[in-house]
């Protein structure tokens, strides 16, 4: 569950790839893309869709895992879809990526409350909701940071959590 964009392996030939796909806001585009991944044996780990800077254009970010030799094929097949404008494979180092997580952790006593808040501060997590028995945090960062925060909170008892999945942008070339 950890690693830089496009760089890690899960032990098999499967590699994780972060694909940023700019699509026209047309119905059915996502279904076509998802269908393509499924047909070629790719597992979508996360998917986010949002408006881009251009009107009528959405930017979707897919984290998928699959064999390396098929990713090029999938990129080409994506490019073939009429409503797909661009496909970028974010390889490690050339892109920045972020994820947003909301996490609700149980609070049993005042000592724990202090401890939890201390950890949250280290992660620069924001408190969104305070109750006597639980706290809700908002954390942004890369995937590794999310994973680490979850591990830190686990002993206290995670009540619920939700992650948006990654979004990514290419870095601007130096110069």
């Amino acid at each position, binding site marked *: 569950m950890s690693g830089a964009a496009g760089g890690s392996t899960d032990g098999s030939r499967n590699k994780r790839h972060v694909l940023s796909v700019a699509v*026209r806001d047309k*119905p*059915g585009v996502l279904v076509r893309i998802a269908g393509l991944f499924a*047909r070629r044996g790719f597992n979508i780990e996360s998917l986010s869709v949002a408006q881009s800077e251009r009107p009528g254009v959405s930017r979707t970010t897919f984290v998928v895992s699959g064999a390396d030799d098929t990713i090029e094929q999938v990129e*080409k097949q994506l*490019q073939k879809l*009429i409503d797909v*404008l661009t496909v970028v494979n974010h390889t490690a180092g050339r892109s920045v990526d972020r994820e947003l997580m909301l996490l609700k952790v149980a609070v049993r006593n005042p000592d724990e409350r202090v401890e939890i808040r201390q950890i949250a501060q280290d992660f620069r997590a924001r408190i969104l909701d305070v109750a006597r028995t639980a706290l809700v945090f908002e954390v942004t960062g890369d995937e590794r940071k999310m994973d680490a925060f979850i591990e830190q909170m686990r002993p206290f008892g995670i009540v619920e959590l939700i992650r948006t999945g990654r979004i990514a942008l290419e870095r601007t070339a130096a110069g």
Partner: protein
Amino acid sequence: MTGSEVVMKLLERHGVEVIFGHPGGAIMPIYDALYDSPIKHVLVRHEQGGAHMADAYYRASGKVGVCFATSGPGATNLVTGLATAMMDSSAVVAITGNVASGLIGTDAFQEADVYGITGPVTKHNYLVKRVEELPQVLAEAFHIASTGRPGPVLVDVPKDVQLAKYDGPLDSEIDLPGYKPTIVGHAGQIRKAAEAVRAAKRPVMIVGGGGQVVPREVAELVERTGIPVITTLMGIGAYPPAAEESLGMPGMHGTVSANKAISHCDLILGAGLRFDDRVTGKISRFAPNATVVHIDIDPAEISKLVKAHVPVVGDLRDVLPRLTQELGPLDIGEWRETLAGWKATYPEKYTLDKPLVSQEILAMLREATAGECVVATEVGQHQMFAARMLPTTKARSFITSGGLGTMGFGLPAAIGAAIARKGETVVLVAGDGSLQMNIQELATLYKENLPVVIAILNNGVLGMVRQWQELFHAQRYSEIYLADSNPDFAKLAEAYGIEGHNIHDRETAKSAIRAAVAAKKPVLLNFFVYEAEKVFPMVPAGAGVDEMILGDQEPDAHRVPEPVAR
């Protein structure tokens, strides 16, 4: 105007001359507008037939084929036809009616998610939301279907859109920023391709379905260089099969010469093909010593299955002439001699050991038509026999379902091709199994009264399946027997008003074929052939093309050699 009138007017503007369709509730407004339209409509008896006719119409003419269907069951009946067209890169525009917009998503009567269902089997599809979209959507549909790598496009039009009033312009700009097919090949890549071809000692050109648009350009390249040519099932007719340089079809049921050439060559010049598994066999044994030059209009085909050392993305109409320019006569005399030797050792042959033999019927058909006919096929052993014994000399003339292998394609395809190529005789090579999958189109054939000769190679079995069971499933013949319940095909034809003959022997066969070809009307000839016929050579599934089972194609003195040359 209403949306329906807009649809019909736009089809006219796009040069549509014929529509293959079947009406129903959700497309009735369009059929009402069709009533006043000059465009010819062919009433099919099953929407699948309509889709195959439109597909074959494109294949035979190069003009986009158009079909109509109603919502729900009408549209779902199109699916096999769309998938067939998609696999063989055929330009079809399918227009379906749908329930009114307000009812979509409510499980209304005859509602199906046609947009969702047809997405994976079309190059693109549309669900029209407002009548104002029609001019642009149809312009885009025809553009997408017919440019780049051709393919089917479906336009789903809800009933309220068909009825809506529209008084805007019919002209429309297309707006497809994500669709830019690469037409012009990269000069550097073409140069590299030429260098590789020049350096080769044992080159071979393989032409696929893309070759159907460039028979002249292929011929010019071959004439200039002397390179031997293999044509895939989809490439039949892109180069004359009787030419000295022609090695025939490669792959699972390909010729020995073509498969040997692939195994021994040091360069493949692939043009407009996608290295389908039926062509390559086991990839690791496919052309192990070859540099692969791959020219294709679809970048996704490059290095998909066979690694291309020199990829060239572009339209063959652009790339081939430019490549020819950079080439001269190749110094490959020795290689050509080797190939000529193989062709002499392994001619097409068959034994006349039964009252009627599939290959001899095809040879008779070839003789009777002087090779000057359009051939359509169904799917099975008869299809492979036809590809080898009745390859056409002209492009766009061998109409067969290669990629999807759709039984039931042949009869509607023969009708679509006959309409596209007025005046030319179409020979449909059919199996007794496949023909029954769209047999209802005999009614359409009767009504259109087209010069289609249906030649059933009636072996009483699902022959291709039987062949696999005999060879690879220990003769366990599971559910392949048809003879006990086949109809009397001659009588069946007659029931549809079509002349039909059941034929059991060579003499009758010869005269019946001659008469049928001369008749210039539909005639069904039902030839009874032996159930245990097999198509050889055969590359077993998963084996390499160098591991052919030769079977009756083994060189041996007892058989009558059948030279392919004519």
